[in-house]
């Protein structure tokens, strides 16, 4: 087992390297550079050139790349031209928001998905199951951005139950209880929106797992021996079905990242997703590079963790 884990980690290294090179080259290919919009167009082009030279933009790409990587591993991702801040600081300020949102989203997702999936499987063909199937279908089919818009429109504006943008209302004392409540309130709508659609795969998986196991011989045997139904389900079936969810972690992260871009835009939530979009529009290389690298790494690590967890909790080696 450790062998597979070690091999997996070793495999990751070339992946990370290729990823970073790819990103770097991509960013370089973008038309226009940070100086294009910054400088007074009336300036002598020679001055702009010297500035470019000084910023190292004319060096061969591999030199620029190694410079970038060298700095990055020390935490220096360069300067953001948009905000005139070090990129690291910029991202650090936003990443907390996105992580908070992601956490809320994931918690709600599993709070809904696990009971719904398991119970729907157990009480197959009941009205509850039928409802879950319909809900599941919708959560697969409806695109996130449309759902988010409707949620925002209905609950944010029309019904005015939740705030419609930002992370916190202005004017509250930082650190006070109302402050945290308010922050939480701002997280609910976007988090709920993402969660409601994110349950799709998990519910489907759990439900079908429970149904499959339910029909297996050993369940019938246990029943005929007089073991109460609840015990069968709770002890054996549910637990065994739930473990492999951990293996979904890698793909969860990918979905969360892609989702955050959309959600943060719609809910005007200042997180990493919104920063990404803004930096692309502004052609702020340093930010783009850093973001894609970090997010790519996050996905890689997430997949790695889920693979490791999967090999540990391999359902074939169930401990009774």
């Amino acid at each position, binding site marked *: 087992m450790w062998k597979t884990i070690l091999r997996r980690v070793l495999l990751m290294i070339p992946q990370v390297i290729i990823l970073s090179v790819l990103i770097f080259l991509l*960013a370089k290919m973008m038309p226009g550079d940070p100086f294009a919009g910054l400088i007074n167009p009336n300036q002598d082009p020679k001055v702009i050139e010297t500035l470019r030279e000084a910023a190292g933009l004319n060096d061969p790409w591999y030199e620029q790349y190694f410079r970038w990587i060298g700095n990055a591993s020390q935490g220096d991702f360069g300067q953001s031209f948009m905000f005139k801040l070090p990129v690291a600081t910029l991202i650090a300020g936003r990443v907390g928001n996105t992580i908070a949102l992601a956490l809320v989203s994931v918690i709600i997702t599993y709070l809904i998905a696990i009971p719904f999936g398991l119970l729907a499987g157990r009480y197959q063909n009941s009205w509850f199951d039928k409802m879950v199937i319909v809900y599941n279908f*919708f959560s697969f089919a*409806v695109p996130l*951005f449309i759902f988010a*818009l409707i949620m925002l429109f209905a609950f944010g504006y029309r019904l005015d139950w939740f705030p419609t943008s930002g992370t916190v209302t202005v004017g509250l004392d930082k650190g006070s209880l109302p402050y945290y409540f308010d922050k939480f309130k701002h997280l609910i709508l976007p988090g709920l929106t993402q969660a409601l659609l994110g349950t799709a795969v998990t519910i489907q998986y759990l439900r079908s797992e429970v149904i499959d196991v339910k029909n297996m011989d050993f369940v019938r045997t246990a029943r005929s021996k007089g073991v109460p139904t609840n015990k069968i389900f709770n002890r054996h079936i549910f637990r065994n079905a739930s473990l492999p969810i951990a293996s979904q972690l890698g793909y969860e992260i990918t979905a969360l990242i892609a989702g955050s871009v959309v959600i943060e835009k719609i809910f005007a939530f200042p997180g990493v997703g919104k920063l990404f979009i803004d930096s*692309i529009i502004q052609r702020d290389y340093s930010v783009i590079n850093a973001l*894609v690298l970090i*997010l*790519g790494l996050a996905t890689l690590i997430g997949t790695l963790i889920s693979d490791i967890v999967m090999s540990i909790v391999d359902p074939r080696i169930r401990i009774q």
Partner: protein
Amino acid sequence: MTEKTKDTITLQESIPPMGFRMIAREFVKEKMAIFSLVVLAIILLSVFIGSFFIDQSQVMHVSILDKYAEPGTVTVDGNQFLLGADEGGRDIFGQLIIGARNSILIGFAITIITSVIGVGLGIISGYYGGLIDNIIMRIVDFIMILPIMLIIIVFVSVIREYNIWAFIWIMSAFYWVAKARLFRSKTLSEARRDYVSASKTMGSSDFKIMFREIMPNLSSLIITNLTINFAANIGIETTLTFLGFGLPQSVPSLGTLIGYASSGDVLVNRQWVWLPASILILVLMLSINYVGQALKRSADARQRLG
């Protein structure tokens, strides 16, 4: 010693197991599925026929005087705005029809391209195994790990001459991987069956075996996968356009219409701009998805038959 039975007189047409006809038969038994199919057909027909009659340049022609005209009002030129106008005075209804046509065509193109690549590479990978399989799977693994949406957004910003085809190719370049993986594993299990060995001993070429022998046995999977994929691709395209990284702004599309809702004002006060497009996408995707799920169910039920 030939056994002549009564069946030779009544020529009964043999149904291929799990073939398209079999699936179709199961499909028609579900009322909801037929309903979705009909709805889908209506939308497709009206969109395509409608787009013939609408002049794109006229629709996208900016007319400031008609800014945010409400549905039912008349333009300066004397035409009626069936669904009102957007910020630039452009007819919403026209944009809706043409935009829908664009999204459908793009989704279709991407689905076809990714299917050809994904199924092809998947079968090749699963059949040959060994080095070829290793290489292809390494590439697949690598792409699956990337945050695809982010990379697509970056790509979209990078391309100099950006048009619809560039978009289609960029999307296709990344989304074939999931298909390849799926069909590889199916091919692996099929290739183990004796009829493949038999074909090899019969002297059939590898190419023939892969695509004349194995692929037909994957046909039910291909069909259902295609359908559900179609819906997903439309969803991704509209999402990207909504964010501003899909179709160029000058091309009418459902995504841009909905994109206007980013402004709170439009969201709350001028629903005619974004709501029709949203509803259309919803109905489109729901019906395609339902048809796809129904196909999946019909294919599965029959799979028990030896």
